[in-house]
């Protein structure tokens, strides 16, 4: 079945086609959920919600852009809805560390599990901003709109996230010397 056929069947709410769609995209979408969620269990919850939204809203997909891009956006939106309302305590010193864009570390082989773990451990807002900016290529302006924060806050959050991650990567490096 081609993707177009699959989408048509899914628009008819065909259970088989929905299963096929899940098979094709659940892994990619689950990775998004994992890096936007604080843990594995909540990532699974978000994935479930995202797929239900996809199946219910698939009628609105109008073949104009990439389908994968569309379902990824829905997934990101689903997770954002969960965590964007949670407040972070970093209003002060925003501009102070905003310049610290480039944080470099030694290129050593750090396992993916660990990287994911430390991303998940970030405070909600930091995690969202970091994932959106670094991993999914959103601009600060977009992030600000989507999370209901200013561009500056987004930048500041990103810098803080980087700082935390760097510390943890270095700690890992120390421990595994």
């Amino acid at each position: 079945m081609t993707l177009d056929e699959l989408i048509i069947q899914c628009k008819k709410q065909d259970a088989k086609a929905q299963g096929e769609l899940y098979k094709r995209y659940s892994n990619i979408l689950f990775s998004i959920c994992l890096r936007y969620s604080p843990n594995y269990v909540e990532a699974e919850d978000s994935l479930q919600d995202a797929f239900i939204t996809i199946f219910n809203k698939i009628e609105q997909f109008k073949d104009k852009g990439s389908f994968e891009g569309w379902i990824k956006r829905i997934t990101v939106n689903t997770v954002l809805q969960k965590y964007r309302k949670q407040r972070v305590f970093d209003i002060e010193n925003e501009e102070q560390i905003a310049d610290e864009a480039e944080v470099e570390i030694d290129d050593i082989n750090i396992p993916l599990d660990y990287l994911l773990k430390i991303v998940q451990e970030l405070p909600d807002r930091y995690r969202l901003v970091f994932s959106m900016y670094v991993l999914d290529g959103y601009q600060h302006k977009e992030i600000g709109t989507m999370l209901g924060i200013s561009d500056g806050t987004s930048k500041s959050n990103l810098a803080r996230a980087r700082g935390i991650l760097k510390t943890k990567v270095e700690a890992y490096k120390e421990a595994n010397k």
Partner: protein
Amino acid sequence: MRFLLSQELKMKNKKNIDELFKEKLSSFEATPSADVWNNIQAKMKAEKEDRKVIPLWWKVAGVAALLALLFTIGSRVFDDSKTTEIVTENTKEKTNTKNSNNTITSSENTVIASEDENKTETLEKTTNASDNNTKANSNNDVFNKTSTSNDAIAVEEIKKRNTIKGTEKTSVEKKPRFKDNTIESVKETVVATSTSEKLSEKEKEKEEKNISKTSNDKLNTIDTNKTVDTEKVAVAIEETSSEKETNDVSNKTEASKNKKSIYDAIEESKTEEAVAKVDRTPDNRWDVTPNFAPVYYNSLGEGSSIDPSFADNAQSGDVNFSYGVQVSYNITDRLSVRSGVSNVDLSYATGGIELGTGPVSQALRSVDYGGRQVVLTAFDNGTLMDVSSGDPFGGITPKSTSGDVELVQNISYYEVPLELKYAVLNKKFGVNLIGGLSTLFLGNNDITAQAANFSETLGEANNLSSVSFSTNVGIGFDYKISRKFKFNIEPMFKYQLNPYTDSSVSFRPYYLGVYTGVSFKF
């Protein structure tokens, strides 16, 4: 910190932390546990079944309707015993009047008969005694003809036959009425032999004949003919013995007449049963009730009638008004059936949306924009953010509004209910159970976007059924102000069965109304 950074820059194999994470985390894939798919499947199935499953209220209303139907049938059966009594009374009366009619016609006949008798008597004088049969036959002929009211022709025929004196011909002619002829010929012989008897007596006989004939004509059955025949033979024989006995026999024939009238009565009772039922003039069986109600409209389901994407949005029902007139007919003291017409305005609001202007192809599908190409439409909150980041929904300009925006759907129906009302308590203060169906004819409707500083109608909804139904259940309280006037207050729950042509809409609307009115009996 700065120092640390500059130190690190000098180290080999330095890597931007962003790149480290991007490299590893943006391309990895992870397999969720099987539970996720199972949950999704279960949820989708549940949503599907939610749409298919017969709503609980449908079932409840069905049971209510069935009960109401049973009540109706039960009361009909109960009514039947009453009506048959009335009917038999009526038929008795009717048969009496019919009998009196008979006597009238027979007396008329008697007049004619006596005239004929005179003629035959004059004939008797001119003819031989052996020609009695002929006379009798011709006499019968006369009767037959009189019964068909062809007097003049009959007399002519008599004259002809008298001149011809051909008895055989007439007897051949009379073959179809053979029995009558024989009997009557017997009678006539009797008449001939007892010429000394008074004319009045003969008239009596004629009367009997007429009666029997009319009854024969009426019933047209051989059996009754036979009985009449035998009785008549008896009459003929007994007449020869004495006058008193003749009277007795005539009484008997009268009795037999009565018997027949009972047969008639049964026959008539059958035919008139229906008539009698209709004829029963019910006193104050009708009620007319102008009523008015605040109605609250909402949905039992989670879905949205406007767009599936609004299914999880905040939706709130609004209170509007219904007004109309109801006419009810009391089948029994307790049970009444009612109908009428009323105008119902319903509306509800969907929140959590944002507005945008864009091409009609991107707009809500459930709205009829009336051929416009660029329209104002609504999206689920957050959808338009996707647009800004190069989304498939291109070409939409978000519209900024102050405060929360709501999408308000207004629907106006003309409602024609058919409901049964059963009085549980039927005193000065009454309590009633009400159940039934309404047919809803769609009137005006629109979908309007409303914000604090803004209100614009998007268009009409195109997924509303032009004719739909609702099941209604409710409790009615009434207070009898006087014999004629009654104050009613009826909280009703009305569940709509097929309000939307789009069956995938898991929006299951109902409306609650408290109908108040004053009913007038007439």
